[in-house]
């Protein structure tokens, strides 16, 4: 298989996998945070802060993959 064909197959799959991973990660983080807030409503601010930081890092990973995809996208079809 040609290099560019492989890239054209792999890059969207990589973005999809990153999105699935991030979705699962954020889902787990939010679920656990909600449980923690339910148990200790007085600690909601601290739990929310930790959740926001976690969500920012998880989202950042997807954005990294997306930007790498944009970079590789320019190489697909280029001769």
């Amino acid at each position: 298989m040609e290099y560019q064909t492989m890239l054209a197959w792999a890059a969207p799959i990589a973005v999809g996998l990153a999105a699935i991973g991030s979705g699962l990660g954020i889902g787990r983080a939010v679920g656990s945070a909600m449980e923690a807030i339910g148990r200790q409503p007085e600690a909601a601010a601290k739990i929310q802060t930790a959740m926001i930081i976690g969500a920012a890092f998880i989202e950042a990973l997807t954005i990294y993959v997306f930007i790498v995809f944009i970079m590789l996208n320019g190489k697909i079809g280029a001769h």
Partner: protein
Amino acid sequence: MRNSLGLDFLNRTLKTTGLLLLIFLPFGIYYLGVYPALAVFSGGVWGIVNFIFLAALIRVAFRPEGVDRRRLLGLALVKFPMLYGAAYCLLTIPEFTPPQFLIGFSVALAVMVLKVFGRLLLGLHDENPEPKRLERAL
């Protein structure tokens, strides 16, 4: 408490990031050139705005009092189509390269990691930090 890891921590992180980017801009223009410096700066600003919207979304959506649906919808409509569209438009500028944008975007995350790392080193992650650990760290 100023040093607590509450919602104030996020505001302080964003202020530090903004300050870092402002300090970087003139040096970046001088050493890297106008467009690379602007690409890093715009990536950083985009990262800050994205983080503000993410924090606002989480605060509105996940709180003990229940979901504020109207604000949630408004924030989601601004964050997902508009903010991401703005990033796409920035990335289509021929002078802006994606890695430069990515470096700028990562500044806020780096500041956050370093702040948390500093807190751990100084023992400020506890509610009542032990004075001995603080003394040792300083």
